[in-house]
């Protein structure tokens, strides 16, 4: 049985007239990587700040590890990187971690281990102010890892990382999940979320649009059929899989949930005299789902052309 690590109940934050987060309900379960997905300004960071007790909600509530956000009983069990790393520029990376480790009464071994996990051991003696954006980001993740917390809250952890760094980050997240640590990850990098997250919450305009597994969000697979004449192909497809499952698109016909029908459909098309150019199984990417959802949630003038 999986226990709930984070849950929110109509969590809301308002700044004056601006509604930053509106009645968000999310649930993060033990040992999962939960992706909090949304465009810039969607309310991801504000929600995470509320979960860490850095800002107070206007209304609604949340529990983190069974306590209200910021409770003394939980702070030692949470590691976080929120909206970019905040460190002392005059201290080295290692000394910055030593300062933060002291807050949790952790020793030098915890600092060394954290630096090693983010591949910063050889640059630990350099001043934080001289770090590249990617190195700063990795130090922020190292800080979050100090003491192996039960819950990691990472806000856009791949910001500023090069492709190799992003791959390393994915491996690190998977390792953490394999060790039983729970990760709440906010991102607008859809590929990263699709590859690493077990479940996803999609937020736009401060509102949670969906919460499901990645597979559930992407939905069932479909068949893409390109054959001529188009009208003949459509008629054959309707006879084979039913009217409701056939959609004409710019690429050809799309048959929802029709992957099992491929052999029969091919035979029917050929028998009917159609020229079959292509029949293949297609899956909607998380990116497609994301744009469908976020476009639908935005005013028509702001929508991304698809």
């Amino acid at each position: 049985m999986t226990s709930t690590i984070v849950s929110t109940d109509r969590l809301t934050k308002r700044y004056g007239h601006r509604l930053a987060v509106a009645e968000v309900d999310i649930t993060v379960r033990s040992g999962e990587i939960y992706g909090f997905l949304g465009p810039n300004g969607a309310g991801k960071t504000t929600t995470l700040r509320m979960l860490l007790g850095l800002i107070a909600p206007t209304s609604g509530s949340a529990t983190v590890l069974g306590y209200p956000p910021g409770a003394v009983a939980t702070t030692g069990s949470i590691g976080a990187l929120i909206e970019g790393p905040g460190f002392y520029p005059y201290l080295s990376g290692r000394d910055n971690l030593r300062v933060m480790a002291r807050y949790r009464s952790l020793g030098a071994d915890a600092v060394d281990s954290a630096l090693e996990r983010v591949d910063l051991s050889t640059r630990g003696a350099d001043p934080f102010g001289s770090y590249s954006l990617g190195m700063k980001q990795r130090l922020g993740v190292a800080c979050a890892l100090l003491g192996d917390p039960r819950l990691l809250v990472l806000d856009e952890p791949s910001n500023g990382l090069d492709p190799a760094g992003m791959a390393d980050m994915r491996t690190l997240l998977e390792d953490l999940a394999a060790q039983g640590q729970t990760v709440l990850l906010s991102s607008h990098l859809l590929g990263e979320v699709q590859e690493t997250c077990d479940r996803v919450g999609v937020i736009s305009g401060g509102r949670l649009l969906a919460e499901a597994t990645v597979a559930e969000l992407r939905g069932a697979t479909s068949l893409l059929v390109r054959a001529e004449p188009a009208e003949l192909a459509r008629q054959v497809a309707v006879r084979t899989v039913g009217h409701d499952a056939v959609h004409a698109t710019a690429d050809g016909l799309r048959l929802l949930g029709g992957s099992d029908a491929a052999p029969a459909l091919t035979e029917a098309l050929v028998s009917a005299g159609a020229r079959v150019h292509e029949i293949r199984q297609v899956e909607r990417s998380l990116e497609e789902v994301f744009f469908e959802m976020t476009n639908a949630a935005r005013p028509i003038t702001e929508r991304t052309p698809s």
Partner: protein
Amino acid sequence: MTALFASTRAELLRLTKWRVTWLLIAVWLTLNVTFVYVIPYLSYRTGGGGEITDGQSPESLLADMMPTTLAQSLTQGMPLFGGAIMLILGAITVGSGFGWGTWKTVFVQSASRSTAFLGTLVALAVVVVGTVVTTLAVDAGLSVLVAVTEAQPIDWPPATDLAAGVGSGILIFGMWTAAGVLLGTVARSPALAVGLGLVWAMALENLLAAAANLLGGLEPITDVLPGRTAGSLAGSFGGGGTPGVLTILGGGTAGLVLAAYLLAFVVISLTLIRRRDVV
């Protein structure tokens, strides 16, 4: 208590590795030595009576540099430039954490906001006490050097006077540091906090006192403003005529008022830190 100890250790690490901390202490010690020993000694050697030493006679100048006046030597520079330096220390220690985003990191790492912030205050208190004790040691060494050089007897002040001097020094520096902490917390920026603090300490208080003199009836208020109260506490050890050193309030009253300011600044800062959103 364990969490507070951990926070204090963390803050001491970052304060002691910050060049700014040592620079401010060095500036204070330099100014203290310059105005308490170097200029008076040069004036004494050239016959005294100069404007910079307020026309003091050579005998008076020499007497003020002897070990027996150590409490006065220790505190006379504190109300004005010493206080301003400590205000800067408090303001940048707290204010820069908002600009660098370190408060949010610290608040996530520490047991609670209160323990994190109290750790900062205790670490600053350690710096203040260390600075006062170092100043005492430097002043004691120089006073002995002057006494030996000028073939004067080395008489130390009573231990109670010395303890009162050290306590007063800690109170004056502590109050100004806490004022800086409050300004850093309110402004959430080191530059604005330092600017506001220096305008208050170096100009505004004196302008308000001058206005009170002209208008009459406002002295009871202006007499207990932070800088003037600190000046009165320093003035209770002598050193009248030194800029910033006053004799408006008695030493006991000034000490109590300064302690009240210190407490108020700490409580207001802590309340703001606990209640406000950290963005």
